[in-house]
């Protein structure tokens, strides 16, 4: 008779998403906008809304654009 035993190796806990406040959202946007393209969050938003990015569909710009729901 073959005895099967449950593996004693525990599965890693499934990570839970972290909900953040609007203030934390601004902090994240500020950090990422400063890294690339080197703008403040407010300046990035101003330029984006004004259509001032000559080529908005670049990975660096889109990377920050996609974070705008953090603050809107």
């Amino acid at each position, binding site marked *: 008779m073959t005895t099967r035993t449950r593996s004693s190796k525990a599965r890693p806990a499934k990570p839970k998403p*972290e*909900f953040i406040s609007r203030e934390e*959202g601004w902090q994240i946007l500020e950090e990422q906008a400063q890294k690339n393209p080197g703008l403040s969050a407010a300046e990035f938003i101003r330029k984006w809304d004004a259509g001032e990015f000559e080529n*908005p569909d670049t990975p660096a710009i*889109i990377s920050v654009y*996609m974070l705008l729901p953090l603050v809107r």
Partner: protein
Amino acid sequence: MREVVRPGGYHPSSEPALLVLARGDQVSLPGTSPALALEAREWYTFVEQREAHVSARWRVQLTGYDYALRSPDARSEFLAFHLHPDVPNSASPHLHLGSALLRRPSFATAQIPTGWVSSAEVLRLLIRDLGVRPLRPEWDALLIEASSARSTARATP
């Protein structure tokens, strides 16, 4: 490493909710040599399915994404998968190739996933982005017409 959800990301809204990996930072990927790092953002909305049972009344619909592969120091970009239909001239999902790809031989044999790509989309890439000179000035309208005619015949992958 955690995913971060925008305030209100559990409730329907006219604005998209955001799920972002590691508070917007890159995450180094184990087992890659030279090292790779992943950055990920997803936009989603809640869609009500009125006919469904109450337990399945709402479903999550992805409306945008940005998945980027870079070097851990973020100086080299390899690939970026994008869907951001609200950005001008960017209605369709697409892929950006970074020049650093040329230094990664493993990418030469990798099967990089794409959505269904039509011949019209390939022709548009050639003309719009790669400088190919079209023979007909109304090329854009012709490609739109061709896409419309082909979409009904497209097999579901």
